[in-house]
């Protein structure tokens, strides 16, 4: 008995004594672009189901694979309860994320500023809506070898979506890895211009317009000091990243913002290695700010930050779910005869589906009740949804606790949480939400 106890103690100590190389900060914001899915009566963005798992599950899973222990989730007040509940009672992974709650609606960098005391080492900033097949160690190793101020992960989207603004990404063509220009299409008007100082420093610039920002950044620790000092930096991708990128070729800016001092306050990992190395020190390493880009082209990577992209994520993952080891139809689901569930669909726990209701390319959550002679295709149906008989649903997203009465026909609609669609409703391309939500 005694022996057993001491052993337990030891393992516990070991766990605490481990020095982590990276900290992760998951930004679980409100998700404005996902309205009305993220309304109060449904779930916060982090918990929106993708192939019947909350989005944040994939992020936590990815971080776990990356071997990161120290994980902080920044959530807004509205999501505190639900995310807390999820982490405590539902989440099954090995991580023990720390939930930080901040007051609503601040920029991403503002959020980091509020928890700056928690950041002790180089940190990864990741959004809760990212799903990728990229093996995390590829990115981390890339960051370790280049040892830059930050590494940003960009991906080539497999599909283009309307809501996405064009991203202009400038990469130094000779190294193919330095990020030297970022701009969003929305910020640029009719003209595209580059500073000559950039072109003297980096004579060959590749400008890509097909890449998308995954909003995964690995920052050096001193960057949090910069965020803390500069109150004007409110967003990571709109302010912080462009500022650092510019500092690579605008010396004056670098000095004005005092970034050179901050950057030199932290010794680069490889400095000592370079000092003892017989090969010549690479000149590019001498600049105080270096921004690297990792472009992921070979596999799936996407964010669920808009409704079309969220739906696409669902479609993609329910198709590919074999690889993700999700059981297609929960053993506890009840499906009557003559109802066909396509191989690209998922059915959650305790869901009941009545006769002659074919289900194609859709994900259906837990505890749903679906009536007879209905037809469901290309849709996302969350938990506790009731669909009566003879209903046709195509391309819709139906939130928790909604009810769709008989003989309704919905196409490309979004049904808000708890909303009741009257019988024989015919709707196309509409958002069906409670009236008071609109106010």
């Amino acid at each position, binding site marked *: 008995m005694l022996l057993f106890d001491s052993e337990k103690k030891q393992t516990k100590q070991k766990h605490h004594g481990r020095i982590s190389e990276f900290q992760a900060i998951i930004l679980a914001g409100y998700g404005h672009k996902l309205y009305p899915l993220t309304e109060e009566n449904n779930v916060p963005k982090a918990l929106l189901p993708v192939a019947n798992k909350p989005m944040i599950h994939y992020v936590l899973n990815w971080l776990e694979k990356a071997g990161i222990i120290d994980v902080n989730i920044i959530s807004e007040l509205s999501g505190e309860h639900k995310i807390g509940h999820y982490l405590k009672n539902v989440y099954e992974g090995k991580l023990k994320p720390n939930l930080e709650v901040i007051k609503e609606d601040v920029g991403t960098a503002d959020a980091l500023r509020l928890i700056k005391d928690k950041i002790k080492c180089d940190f990864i900033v990741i959004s809760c809506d990212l799903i990728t097949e990229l093996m995390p160690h590829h990115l981390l190793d890339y960051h370790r070898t280049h040892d830059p101020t930050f590494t940003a992960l960009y991906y080539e989207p497999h599909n283009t979506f309307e809501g996405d603004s064009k991203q202009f990404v*400038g990469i130094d063509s000779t190294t193919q890895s330095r990020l030297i220009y970022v701009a969003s299409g929305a910020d640029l008007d009719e003209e595209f211009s580059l500073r*000559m100082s950039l072109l003297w420093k980096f004579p*060959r*610039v590749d400008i890509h317009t*097909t890449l998308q920002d995954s909003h995964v950044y690995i920052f050096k620790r001193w960057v949090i000091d910069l965020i803390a000092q500069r109150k004007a930096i409110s967003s990571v991708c709109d302010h912080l990243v462009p500022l650092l990128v510019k500092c690579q070729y605008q010396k*004056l800016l670098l000095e004005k913002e005092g970034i050179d001092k901050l950057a030199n306050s932290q010794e680069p990992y490889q400095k000592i290695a370079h000092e003892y190395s017989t090969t010549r020190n690479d000149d590019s390493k001498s600049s105080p700010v270096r921004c690297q880009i990792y472009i992921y082209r070979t596999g799936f990577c996407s964010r669920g930050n808009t409704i079309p992209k969220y739906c696409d994520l669902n479609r993609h993952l329910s198709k590919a779910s074999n690889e993700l080891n999700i059981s297609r139809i929960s053993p506890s689901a009840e499906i009557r005869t003559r109802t066909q569930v396509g191989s690209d669909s998922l059915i959650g726990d305790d869901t009941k589906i009545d006769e002659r209701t074919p289900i194609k390319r859709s994900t259906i959550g837990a505890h749903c009740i679906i009536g007879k002679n209905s037809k469901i295709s290309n849709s996302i149906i969350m938990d506790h949804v009731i669909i009566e008989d003879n209903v046709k649903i195509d391309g819709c997203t139906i939130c928790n606790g909604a009810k769709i009465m008989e003989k309704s026909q919905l196409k490309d609609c979004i049904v808000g949480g708890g909303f009741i669609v009257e019988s024989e409703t015919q709707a196309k391309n509409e958002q069906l939400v409670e009236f008071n939500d609109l106010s």
Partner: protein
Amino acid sequence: MGPPKSSGKNIEAENVLQAVVLADSFNERFRPITLDKPRCLLPLCNTPLLEYTFEFLAVAGVQEVYLFCREHSEKIKKYVNESKWNRSYSPIKIITIVTPEARSVGDALRELDAKQLINSDFILISGDVVSNIHLEKVIEAHRMRKANDKNAIMTMVVKEASPFHRTRALGESSIFVLDVKTNECVHYESVETYPRKRRMVMDMEIFNKHTDIQIRNDLIDCQIDICSVEVPALFTENFDYQDMRKDFVYGILTSDLLGKTIYCHVVKDAYAARVRSLQTYDAISKDILSRWTYPIVPDSNLQEGDSYEYMRGQIYKEKNVELSRSCSLGEKVLIGAGTKIADHVNITNSVIGRGVNIGPNVEINDAYIWDDVTINANCSISRSILANKVILEENVIVNKGCLIGYDVVIGPNVTLKAHTKISKHKQKYIAFEEKDKEYEIEDEREERGEGKEDDDGKDDNNEELNKNGYVINLVGKIGKGYLWVDEISDDEDEAINLKNVQVASLAYNVSNISLSESSASIISDQSSYEESDSDESTAQEIFQKEVVQTLERAFSDGHTVEIALLELNTLRLASNTNFHDLRVVVIPTVINRIDIKKGMIGTKEILTRWGPLIAKLIFSNHDQIDTIKILQEYYTENQSQLKVFAQICRILYEMDIIEEEALIEWYYSTSTISAELPSTKNNIHMQIKPFITWLEEAEEDDDDDENKNV
């Protein structure tokens, strides 16, 4: 009979590869040397420039060359007729076309179109290109592209190099924007050193057609173009196109109507450069001697009668060269036949022509000495060009960047300043006196007078003439030659061009040309974006003007302090100035509004309204002192209103805009030296003294109070 014959002709016609060589550069960079000889016949490593171009074209399989000449056409014709290209075994047929009225590349191409000489794709090249690119591949690639893209009309051959490569002409490099996949040129922008470019700008529409583009500032454009037949026709259609790049390429790329496309062929492993300035002349000579241009090197003996041998240390020597035992040849030296070099001569990095006589104890570094030059004892030459038959008498020192024209005699005992140009031809001055003023800024002003003297007969004491009628100070007692000054045009654009030319001069050195500070920063510090001095003064003036205007608007329209501040800050950010600059303008403008007649009330009125604005421009104790100094300066100049100064200080103090510490610090820091200053400053002190004393007393009281409390 007819049909088969004609088809046979067509095939033949397609097989003939044509080239158009522009033997004229349409500029005057090599003046005064080009007064005697066209640029394309100037020797580069003892071989006329045109020879390199012909060799390059012959290797590429060109069969027909149309040679466009303007100036010195007779000399060019004669040269071509006598050269090996006119022999029966010559692979290329050269047809010279004289266009005396052509003023630009555009004119030449319009002439070409009018003559209808071209019947298929042709190579357009200027007569000063040195290259070992395998052009057949490029032409093939061009034809492939044409098959894919019917609108493709031109391929520009460009060479990849670092942006600071020595053969990249300073002052006129260019940025190419290419489509990554196809190498289509989607945007072209020329970069001149003056006026300094800060941003490159292109149309967003480009991104609608091309998703991935590459912006390249590392390409050497040696203006080798593969053109389709449409190109000359397009020049005719657009009669205002002059320059191949700035007008034609830019015009085609920005035109929505034409819908033509231009491609770039980027060469990585071959050599290509164009002798377009003295700076590139120097660079290319060195490249040839270092064999970057292989197989186009001196020991390939391009011309008939050449007999160069390659020796260790990159020394090339022709037969029949007399070297003394004690002379020493450093690396990269080329010596032509019949040259005699006497004792104790040191030569490094230089090209010596044929039949040159070099006397004892001569130093030659980085110099280009053409045929039949005589250099007498104890001369020293660095980084300069001495044209044919120049004679340097004893003890002549030629400093960097000099250009000495044909048949000039200099010496004895003369030192030529850096960047001096001397010619046998007297320069014709137009409105010389006006220009003279401009010249003052340059350091060569002493030597300039002789043209003036001859022109308008004014006597200049400094300019003593020698027996040949030349200025002694310039060319020495038995010298012959006039000073040549690059012409500065009244036109502002051309004045800027001249600066660009200076940058491209031989031995261009950052520290030598004072005017070129901003370009110096490009070179020495690639990433900096400091303002150049000349820019700043004008920018400053504009800024001040705009600030005053903004304030006046604020006064007249009754803006709030916040709005005025916002506008001022915008201005400040836009012109990249600091708060001090803003204060310097704002404070005098505000206090100017004070109505002195009203006395204290008037002062108070204005300051209660606009004081907060001044307060918003002050952040530290230092700024407060700065503010007082600005006030002091203002009242030093406006003596009559001196009384108001103390009032203002008082009010600003009461408004907490200036604190007592600042006032006292300022008072004592200036009062110590004020004894020597004009009486006004003392007056200011007199004015403010009571107030300061009052302040000090108050402070003491405070201190006392505090002490008591403790």
